[in-house]
């Protein structure tokens, strides 16, 4: 237990340090001349937020699978909290992306397959929470939302593989080689990789904290119900 606490403390400190470094260095280093100019610095923040979101959604999917297998409510709590954290990071990613898009493409929202795919992913997870709210009975809620989570995640991945084939995207990434990590200049890479790791660790820290809170609240509810049962 002690060891676990130390590890999570280490993780929190590492996340903080890396992001601290990313914020300071991200604004101080010189970025290479390109058509997007100084807005290039957003890569340290925007991309990392998406990475955090993806990691959280994958965790959520795995926890939902575990719940369906074991029926232990802890896994469902984990799935919920990681989905929530992923949603927060997704919205942050969308907002930073919109600011970036405003300066590089001239609009806050561009009709682009990648952007629309991101919006769809967020809609799906919003639906997940609406679904949770609509069921009162805890076990049924956990089971139904786990089924939805697993099904939605697999379909989402399947579609995300297909969508890029449907149209050209102006957003950099797997299909267009304009800004791949290997194409980044060394000075940017010096900040980019630590920043990515920092964001992922931060999302993990938030998730762990939220899960601890949810677990405590859950245990408290059980204790309360036991007390009222004794009376």
């Amino acid at each position: 237990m002690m060891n676990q606490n130390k590890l999570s403390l280490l993780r929190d400190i590492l996340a903080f340090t890396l992001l601290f470094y990313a914020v300071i260095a991200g604004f101080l280093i010189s970025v290479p001349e390109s058509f997007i100019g100084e807005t290039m610095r957003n890569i340290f923040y925007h991309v990392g937020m998406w990475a955090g979101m993806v990691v959280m959604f994958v965790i959520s999917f795995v926890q939902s699978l575990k719940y369906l297998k074991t029926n232990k409510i802890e896994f469902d709590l984990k799935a919920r909290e990681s989905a929530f954290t992923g949603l927060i990071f997704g919205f942050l990613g969308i907002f930073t992306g919109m600011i970036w898009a405003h300066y590089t493409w001239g609009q806050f929202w561009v009709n682009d397959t990648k952007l629309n795919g991101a919006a769809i992913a967020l809609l799906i997870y919003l639906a997940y929470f609406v679904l949770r709210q609509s069921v009162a009975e805890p076990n049924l809620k956990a089971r139904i939302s786990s089924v939805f989570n697993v099904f939605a995640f697999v379909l989402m991945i399947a579609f995300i593989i297909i969508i890029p084939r449907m149209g050209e995207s102006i957003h950099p990434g797997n299909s267009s080689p304009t800004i791949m990590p290997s194409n980044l200049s060394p000075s940017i890479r010096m900040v980019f990789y630590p920043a990515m790791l920092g964001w992922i660790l931060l999302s993990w820290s938030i998730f762990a904290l939220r899960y601890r809170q949810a677990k405590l609240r859950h245990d408290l509810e059980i204790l309360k119900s036991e007390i009222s049962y004794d009376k």
Partner: protein
Amino acid sequence: MKKEIALELKTRYAISSLGLFVLAVAFLVYYTTEGVVSQSEWWSYYWIILVFVSIQAVVKSFLVEHQSRQYYLAQLASPAQIILSKTLYHILLLFLCGLLIWGVMALFLINPVKEPLQFLGVLFLGTTGIAGVFTLFSGIASRASGNFTILAVMCFPIMIPFIKLLVSQCKAMSIQPNQNLIVLFLLLALLDVAVIAMGMILFPYIWRE
């Protein structure tokens, strides 16, 4: 589980109301566009109407059923059989709806279908995917406090990419007929199989008490 289909067919009013719904929506499109639509607009309207009709058609499958009949079904067949039979029934129903919408919209507006056989293939594979997803979600919605909105909220985000794929392929087909569609068909069929298989795996978790 052909029994299921027979049971569903007994509720005639549901099917006739679906038909009327299709007719009314197609007329609405005709009236608001004043009869002038381009081919690509036609395809967008077509699939959007089909999705809405699909939700209408599928929503009743679990929601309307009485609790007692659900228990009866649960004793009669395994959950996987139930979802499979319901999905098959919905494929048939939605395919017929698709044909009806095509007929009505071709009558009122234009008919952009150049290769009927290819179109029927896309329609069949498309409705199979829609039916697979919607049937499972309607099972989920029936266990949630079971209203129409929750079903729509779950279905739409997931189906947007799928519908987009179908619309853009149909547009391409009517602009440039006689193109090689084997890849598209394989892709759609693969998705359909995946959707139905996942439904059969996951449905028992929703169904059991």
